[in-house]
């Protein structure tokens, strides 16, 4: 048995195991050092986790759009970050108008509903247009071609919105009912974070059920499995792809408003970084896999929030928070080395490319 293991262990594998081991060692030693330093109390750790969860929920919501489009078209929809940006940026003007008129103050729930609907509608329109104009004609082209189109579309949309709304930023108005915090004994949770986490969880659960249970959801899954067979079964493939983009656009728009409610600022470049993070989250969880996207998003959020302070602070690394993205990506590599198809594994039909 040992002979078999040794024989199958190549030079590259051993290098990988060594690197992986070294990283794990750094993490363990660093965490131990941080904890023994005693700078952070339990309350701090609780905060780190909540912050990570809130950020991660938003990543997860955006990741859904990536993962669904990937599942059905096998392409990285680079412009998804712009779908995410367009909705809340546009809805911001609605929010400001509502705020000025006092309606936001008197009818916060109704106002929020209006804001969500506007954002989701705009994001959806952009997503559908994108599919129609930029992706549909390229459905049979080599894999990299739609990727480049998506990159181009991403640029185009960014600078379109910059041209339309200006290069500065806009800020969402204060919504009184979302401000402040709840106290749980010694622990304190911001209302907005609770709202974001709950809303995201609700939306993801709804979407999951939609995909699993409804007729359209099943048809979408069939198209992801095999377009030709699905077409033979009488499924409207184009229609399902459009619906996928609609769902992706709606979830991106909603994620965008949650993001904007939490961070307030919206601008033409706001989608880029969350977009890349969300795609990372989708891959981390297992691309094409909807629960995977959720899990990946939450993991990523937690790594970003906890990682620098837990792993590196104790080692005396200066400005550890600057390295949070590096930590997130290293974690991604580690996960993929040991689970090459993500945490939950990919849900794709065997190699069709």
């Amino acid at each position, binding site marked *: 048995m040992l002979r078999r293991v040794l024989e199958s262990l190549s030079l590259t594998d051993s290098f990988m195991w060594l690197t992986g081991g070294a990283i794990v060692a750094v993490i363990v030693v660093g965490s131990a050092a941080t904890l023994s330093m005693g*700078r*952070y109390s339990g*309350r*701090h750790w609780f*905060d*780190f986790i909540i*912050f*990570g969860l*809130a*950020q991660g929920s938003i990543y997860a919501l955006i990741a859904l759009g990536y993962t669904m489009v990937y599942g059905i078209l096998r392409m990285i929809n680079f412009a998804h970050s712009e779908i995410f940006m367009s909705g809340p940026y546009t809805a911001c003007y609605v929010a400001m108008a509502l705020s000025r008129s006092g309606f936001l103050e008197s009818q916060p729930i109704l106002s929020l509903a209006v804001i969500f609907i506007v954002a989701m509608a705009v994001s959806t329109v952009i997503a559908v247009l994108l599919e129609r104009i930029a992706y549909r004609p390229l459905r049979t082209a080599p894999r990299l071609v739609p990727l480049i189109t998506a990159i181009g579309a991403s640029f185009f949309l960014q600078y379109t919105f*910059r041209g339309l709304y*200006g*290069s*500065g*930023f*806009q*800020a969402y108005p*204060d919504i009184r009912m979302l401000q402040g*915090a709840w106290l749980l004994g010694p622990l*304190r949770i*911001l209302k907005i974070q609770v709202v974001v986490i709950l809303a995201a969880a609700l939306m993801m659960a709804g979407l999951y059920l939609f995909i699993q249970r409804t007729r359209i959801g099943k048809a979408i899954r069939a198209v992801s499995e095999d377009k030709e067979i699905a077409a033979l079964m009488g499924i409207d493939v184009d229609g399902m792809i459009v619906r996928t983009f609609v769902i992706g656009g709606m979830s991106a728009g909603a994620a965008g408003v949650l*993001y904007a409610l939490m*961070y*307030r*600022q919206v*601008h033409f*470049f706001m989608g*880029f*970084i969350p977009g890349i993070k969300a795609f990372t989250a989708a891959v981390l969880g297992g691309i094409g896999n909807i629960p995977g996207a959720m899990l990946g998003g939450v993991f990523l959020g937690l790594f*970003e*929030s*906890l990682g*620098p*302070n837990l792993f590196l*602070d104790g080692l005396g690394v*200066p*400005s*550890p*928070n*600057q390295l*949070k*993205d590096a930590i997130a990506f290293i974690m991604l590599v580690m996960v993929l080395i040991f689970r090459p198809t993500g945490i939950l594994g990919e849900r794709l039909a065997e190699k069709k490319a």
Partner: protein
Amino acid sequence: MKSLRLLSLVILATMLVSAACGPKAVAYEDKIGVVTIKPGEPIVIAYWFVVAGPDASLGTDTKRGIEIAIDDKGGKLLGFPIKLIGEDSACNAEGGVAAATKLAANPAIIALVGSNCSSEARPGVPILTKAGMVTVSPSNTAPFLTDPNRGPDYAGYLRTAHNDKVQGAVAAEFAYKQMKVTKAATIHDGSPYAEALQAVFAETFKKLGGTITAQEAVAPTDTDMRPVLTKIAAGKPELLYYPIFIAAGGHVTRQAKQVAGMEKVTLMGADGMFSPDFYKAAGDAAVGMYHSSPDFSAFAAGYKDFLDKHQKKYGEKPLAPFHAHAYDASMMIFAAIEKVAKKGPDGTLYIGRQALRDALFATKDFKGLTGNLTCSPSGDCADPRIAVYQTTADNVKNLVMPETPTWKPY
């Protein structure tokens, strides 16, 4: 190659001969060249700013400063129309070089305003200097650029922005002497500007006798500052100095109020986010915080006017803090041109490049929006009067900057 040179030489000679037969130019001497502007031709001024990409607000802001300056001059200088051209310098070294090279190749340019980022200026300025041009930066703050030992490569460089060294030290003095704070933390965003400012702050603060509990860094595109702030809170500082820009600064300010242990910590920013837009970003959380910034009370009354014109022309408030510096840089250049330009008998204008440089370096007590500008031999023209302002609830509500400083070091 040699034959090519030869060929061009022959052509050149032919041209010279033909030129000699044409009307003789009026002799006007200058060590590094003369710009000749015939009647009807424009006086060309150029900018090299970051007007595209994620940092575009900085460049757009300063570019508008120049445009308003030109409007204020009625679009004309000595009877010649002013033409503004410019290039995107992208806020990185290669963009700076590309923009500078392109502009340096245009002999019609008389003077430039730029660059925005110090990383652009460092490799870009020598190119302009070599071409005989002069550039005045409204927003470079890196100490190196006006260091007395900066070398002849930077002979064509001045700035109306203040040196990081001044501002960082003022902030530290305020914290230690005025606020009686002994423990402070800093955040920078990886930009050379913020990194240098916080370094100067930390150094001065420690020299004065204080302790720095944490020096942290974020990315300018970060939005979730709560983990960093939680970390900083664990060190129990009394003051947080974060000389970063509006977007990230807004997040830090808002979220500091939400992180346990940070509610009572005094917040202090720098001029990078001393703008009405910052109040939009930070909201009520900005009330009570401090900013180190040029002494706006020393800003001429014209600043109000400027803001009105800005609103009318562009439909929004200034995007970044350096528009007034850009306005002043342009006005300084216009004044210098007016001083050194010579008119020929046929109405042609002659501007000596060295003379223009000399005139700019000789600027003294120039009444600008940002104060009384006097240029040092190494090109520092900013009125070094940095003051500290505290934001009130009214400021945030009406999106206007505080007008009178709460503290001045002088």
